[in-house]
Every structure is written in C-alpha cells, then in structure tokens.
C-alpha cells in the first residue's frame, strides 16, 4: 500500500465537458467530483496516469461511478439502500429504462421541474461555533450566498468568552446568540429556541455550503412524516495526511449519491444489532422539522461535543425512527467539510467518536430498552476492535491508521458512562 498522498480536489460539471480532467500541475492524483450542473453524481480518485491516458476507459470509469445517482434521479428502483436492510424496492421498469437514451437531458428536465414546484415551508439556519473566527467567517460567507431562501440565520456562540460576536456582526442578516454553558447539544437546543422556522437546518462552523444547500434540504421534507433530512458531506480539502486518511480510509462522512429513505421498517429490521443510525448522515449537514422536537425532544445534552463526545445527532434520529417517523438522506444538499488537519486532532476526534458512540448506545437503551444497543456496545464493538487489531498489526492487510489506540481508549471511556443506560423516561426539550 502506498503512503498517503495529498490530493487535488477537482469539481467537474459534466454539462461543461471534461476539460478539467487533465493531469494537475502539482503532479498529484486528483479527487474528482462529478456534477450535472448543481446535482452531485459521484466521485473518483484518479491517478496521473489515468488522466494522461484519458480516453474510453476513463469515460467508462466515470459512467460506472455516476450511474447509480443518475438512475436515482430518473427512475424509481435506483434509490440507495439503507445499510443492513434487505433490498425490497422493485427493479425499474425495463421499457422505461431502455427508453432513457439521453440521461443528462432528462436529468436537466427533472431538476428544472423540481425547482418549479416548490411549496416552501419556512426555514431557520442554526450554526453553532466555538473559538474559530477564521473558519466561522468562511462558513458564514458561503451561508450568506445560499441563505437567500432562509427566513432567519442564528449563530450560537459557545465559546468561552463570547468572542465570535464580531465575526457574526460582519453579516447583516445573521443573529448572534450566546450560550455560556459548553456543549454542542446545549448550543443547538439554544439555537432551536431562538428560531421559529418550521424547518431548522444545522451546519457546523468548519464547513462551507453549496449554493443549493438549503433549497435541497428543504425539498427533502415534501412528505409530512419526514422529520429529518441529511445531506452529502464532501471534503473541502485533502491536503494533509489526516484529511486523506479520514476521507479515504475511514470513508469520511460519505453516504453515497443516491437518496435513501430510513423508516420504521428499516428500524425494525436492524434493531437487534443496534440500528446503524450513525450512517444516516452527519450533524454538519442536517435539517429537522420543528415538530420533531415537540414529538421526540431536543438534542440530548449529555451527548455531543463538549459532553460525551458525539452522536447527539444520530441519537435524535434514533428517537425519530423509533417513534415511527422518517429520515431522508438527500445527497443533493451538499456541504464541504474541513476535516481535521493534523494527527493529534484526528486522534482526539476518533477518541471522542467512540466515547460518544458508546454513550449514545447506552442512552438509546435507557430510553427504549432495545437490547441491540448493549449487544453492540459489549459484543460487536470489541469484536470489531479485535478484527481491526489483527488486520492492522498481525496480518497487516491494511496500513495501521495510527488512531487505533485513540479509538480504543475512547471506547473504554465510553463504557464508564454505563450509568447512562439506566432505564428512564424520554426527556422533552424545555420550552
């Protein structure tokens, strides 16, 4: 296995041709993201040699990679599959499928139709931030560009000294809110209380947003029983080893380019091994129907960054699904995430992920008594660690990622939060 190399990210709008697919001046491989105008369709890691050869094999690779997303936009039967769920969607109608001879033209017509038929609920955007003025400023610039359709934008400052106020005041349409108590869940709940839109969209301060981000998230709520919509998180940069490892070895926040509906049937089919709610999306790119907070409560303040670590988002989704509502992954809503740049940060992140994950499993068990959560915490995760240890250190079939120990200590710290598993009643968001 070759050592991890930085990559140039190249965005290719297929409607504009493939001109961008040339060997880069930097000599690096490229991470090519393919779009049809504003619809993301897939990405490929391409080597210099593949770019230099160009030609039919490259076109075939692109076709292979983007066909599922193209199909998903054009035909029923190409939706993505929820992880762990048996595929029960009927295949596309063959005559219809064979009739698609100009897929991109049809795609364009579909996109135009979707834009025309919008019956928009009101949307509030909440960005929680902490001590990162430069990063926040970049995020807010992109948000200002895409938030024309937002009814309000609230920035919740969770930093120690309230130091983000100056940055927020550079942006006229944005409201500054202070939350002194540390913790991402608390900050988000404060953001929910400070806003009034029917839909509350969340992103983190270390992202930049695609111009259509908010519009696509909102489209995901067309059906009334959809309570959560998550979107596609693409890397903003693959400059450092940690960023490349996070995206390409761990898979980043990547959930594919096909829409996926998560519903009660998915929940019931996967419950015995802890429903993999963490695969539904990422807190850096999600929107929640305000009614959901009334129905299942807000973010659990014992979880999340600044508390147990993370998983405050997926634990909310767990409640949404358990109560019979739906979550939708809508890859058309794109944010670009700045992954942790150095090893130390990546290790700390892995530590927090595991600790937060175990804590969320305990909380989920406490609320619903679903034993799958304990099975995962005490059997599946240790087994995964053992398998990973064998792969990385014994047979070396995969390069040691350097975060194994961080993940393991995070897991063990998580186990110490076992008291969270004590059965209790669901907590409601305080109004």
């Amino acid at each position, binding site marked *: 296995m070759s050592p991890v190399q930085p990559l140039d990210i190249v965005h290719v709008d297929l409607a504009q041709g493939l001109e961008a697919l040339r060997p880069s001046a930097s000599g690096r491989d490229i991470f090519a993201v393919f779009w049809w105008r504003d619809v993301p369709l897939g990405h490929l890691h391409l080597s210099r040699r593949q770019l230099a050869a*160009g*030609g039919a094999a490259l076109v075939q690779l692109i076709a292979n990679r983007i066909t599922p997303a193209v199909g998903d936009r054009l035909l029923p039967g190409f939706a993505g599959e929820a992880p762990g769920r048996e595929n029960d969607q009927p295949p596309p109608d063959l005559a219809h499928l064979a009739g698609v001879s100009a897929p991109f033209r049809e795609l364009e017509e579909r996109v135009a139709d979707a834009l025309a038929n919008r019956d928009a609920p009101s949307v509030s955007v909440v960005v929680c931030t902490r001590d990162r003025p430069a990063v926040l400023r970049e995020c807010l610039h992109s948000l200002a560009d895409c938030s024309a359709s937002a009814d309000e934008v609230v920035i919740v400052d969770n930093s120690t000294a309230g130091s983000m106020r100056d940055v927020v005041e550079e942006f006229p349409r944005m409201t500054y809110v202070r939350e002194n108590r540390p913790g991402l869940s608390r900050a988000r709940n404060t953001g929910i209380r400070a806003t009034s839109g029917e839909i509350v969209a969340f992103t983190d301060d270390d992202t930049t947003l695609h111009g259509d981000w908010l519009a696509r998230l909102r489209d995901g709520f067309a059906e009334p029983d959809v309570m959560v919509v998550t979107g596609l998180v693409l890397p903003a940069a693959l400059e450092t080893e940690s960023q490349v490892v996070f995206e390409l070895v761990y898979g980043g926040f990547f959930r594919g380019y096909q829409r996926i509906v998560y519903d009660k049937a998915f929940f019931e089919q996967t419950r015995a091994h802890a429903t993999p709610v963490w695969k539904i999306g990422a807190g850096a790119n999600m929107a929640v129907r305000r009614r959901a907070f009334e129905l299942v409560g807000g973010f659990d303040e014992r979880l999340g960054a600044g508390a147990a670590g993370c998983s405050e988002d997926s634990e909310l989704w767990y409640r949404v699904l358990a109560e019979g509502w739906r979550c939708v992954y809508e890859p058309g809503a794109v944010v670009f995430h700045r992954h942790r740049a150095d090893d130390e940060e990546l290790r700390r992140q892995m530590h927090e992920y595991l600790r937060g994950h175990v804590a969320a499993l305990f909380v989920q068990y406490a609320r619903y008594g679903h034993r799958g959560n304990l099975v995962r915490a005490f059997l599946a995760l240790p087994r995964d660690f053992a398998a990973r240890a064998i792969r990385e250190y014994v047979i070396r079939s995969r390069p040691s990622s350097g975060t194994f120990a961080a993940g393991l200590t995070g897991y063990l710290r998580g186990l110490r939060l076992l008291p969270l598993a004590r059965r209790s009643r669901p907590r409601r968001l305080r109004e």
Partner: protein
Amino acid sequence: MRYALRDVEVTRALPRVVLDPDQSGLGVLVRRDGRPVDFFLAGLSAGAVLEPDELALLVSRSSARLVLEEAVRRSLPEPPLQPAATESSVTVAICTRDRPRELRSCLESVLALREAGDERTFEVLVVDNAPRDTRTEELVRALPSVAYAREPKPGLDFARNRALTEATGELVAFLDDDTVADPGWLDGLSEAVRENPDAAVVTGAVLPYELETQAQIIFERRGGFRRGFEKLRYHGPTFPGNPLYPVGAGLFGAGANMVVRRDVVLALGGFDEALDTGPPLPGGGDLDIFYRVVRAGHPLVYEPRMLVFHKHRRDLADLRRQYWTWGTGFMAFVSKTYAADPAQRGKLRHLIRWWFLEQLRELRRSLRGGGPLTPDLVLAELAGGVIGLAGTYGRSVRRTRAISSRAA
C-alpha cells in the same frame, strides 16, 4: 440438466421464453443497441414459460444498472486527452489440434465477419498443431481465403509462436478453436484499438456457447470466463483498488479471445513454450504473456464488445481436468514469475496466500452444499495449484527443450 440461452435486446420487444421440459434455467445475454451489457443465469422450474413482462423483470433485476450505464457512457462528453487514431492490419489466428468440427464453426463465424459487406479485411490463419491426421488440413485447404500452417511440435504456445511468425497483420487475434465469434467481434476490436492505439494486448468477453450439461452450467455459475462488461485499461505498476495487480493476471482476460501486437510480443520473446504444453502443463501461457506485456510497460485493455462464445467442457470429468489445469497453469505461472521477476515477490506471496484461502473458502462452501462447485472440483483445482507450485514449471521447461531439440 440443461439451461436455455437467450440473446435479449432491451430496446426492442422482449420474446416469450418457453423452456424445454428438461431445461431448468436460463442464461441471458443482455444487449443495448447491439452492444453486450450484461450476462446472467437464472434457475427456473423445468419447462417454465416466461411471458415477456416476466423476462423484463428478470432482466431489470439483474442488469438495470448496466443497461443505464451504457446510456450514460455514450452521453458523457469526450475527455480532453484523446489518442490519435491509427489503423492496424489484423490476422485472426486459430490454433487447433484434431478438432475439425469445432474448427469449422469457429472459422464460419470468423469468415462471416469478413463477409458483412465491410471493407475492413483481415487475414485468417489456421495453425494445425501436431495433427494425427489430415482432416484439419483438408478443411482449411478447401477454403481459399484461409491460410494454413502446420506446427509439428505439440503445445499451444508452440502453435501461437508459429502464428506470430506466419501472420502478416500488425495485430494477431487468437481465438480458440472451440469458440464462435459474435457478429460484433470485429467492431469491438476496431473500437478498442481506436480508443487505445498504444495497447499491446486487447482481451475480449467470453460467454457460453451452450449450457447443455451440468458441467457447463457449473462452470458458468462459478463465473466462467466472465470479466464483466465494462471497458478496462491496465497500464503501469499499480491499478487503483487492486493490490494484487499485476501479478493476479487472471483479471486481464482469457487466451481463448485475445489480440496481441505482433512486434511487441515478438520483442518480448513470444509466448512461453513451457506453458500451455498440453498435459502435464496445459495452461498459464495466456496469463504469462499478459503479465509480461504489462510489466514491460505496455497498456492492456479489456473490451467487452469483442465477444466470443465458448463451448465449455461437456462432461464432469473434463471439467475436473479443466479446474486442475487452471490450478497447475496458474501456479506454474506464479512460480515462473517468482523466479523471473524478483521485484514482484512480495505481491506474489500475497497472491499465493490469497489464492489458497480462496480455494479453502470455496471448499468449505462446497462441503456445505452452498457454492456452485462440488468438493471434488475444488479439490482438483487446489491439487493442481499444489502441483503447479511443486516444480512443474521447471520440469516443463526441460521437457519443452527436449521437444524443441528433437524437432531441430
């Protein structure tokens, strides 16, 4: 046990399929606008009748993605870097030994390509390898447009090397005598060469000609010679997503349907005559040439449109021998390469370990009645692999030298 075979064009109305009472399944070649895009097998009840809409459902369930991918591929813009077009002359060479009946149908399919009202011409050459009688010669002499050469030294790679020296084309297309070329075969070759003028080898798709016996169905259910229906280009020291490239040479294609650039292969010393000798080492020559071409820095491409149909072994004893052959041929290639190409030894050790683990997994599956194979077939391949590693190649080299010096 028999399966029916159907060639289905998705842009036209689908047929109704009526199985014979002794047919219990169906193999479907799926095409879009004439281009092969997928092949799949479906077990059905004996004598079943499939209405067009039921067939459409089967096709859509297994091939929807590839049917759409073909439309997407054609609609994509051209990449900025395009190779300059060139023309190359072609010789189709068929190496054969005492199988005039198979040879005749192969030749007919090849000659039909030439008669399709096309101005592209190509030479057709039959290499008669150590024949026991004159049936092959008589057959070929009766066809004025087909050249004939006799190679007295028995062994497929002797015959292939003979073809390289007899052929006049810049490209030499090797078809096994038990194949039949699809009418689109030549278009596939032209397309691959146009798209990859620098390629030294083009391999094509190989699908079953018939599924008339249990042995043929087992072979195809295990994957047969299939390598998918997407264009592939292999070039350089690594291939994204495949850590065993280029030593896992099976992925490059099959010698039953391969085209080589004559000057490149001659410059590399031709085919290795100690492989593909017929018993006791009847395989591995194709893997070896693919590997050497790629290691010498030349591109190798796989073109699914360059399609042939292969008559698989009809009885189980022959199938067992075939798997044994694959095992010995593959491992003879591996042990030869281990000695000849020290830079790749790490990957080769990985490959050997992967191969044996894979066989053991297959064996476990077969013992549980899970996979397509019965345990004896897996054991045949496994035993072949062990034998192949145990000095078979060296013995074959000595034997081949003896044959060559006797002939000289």
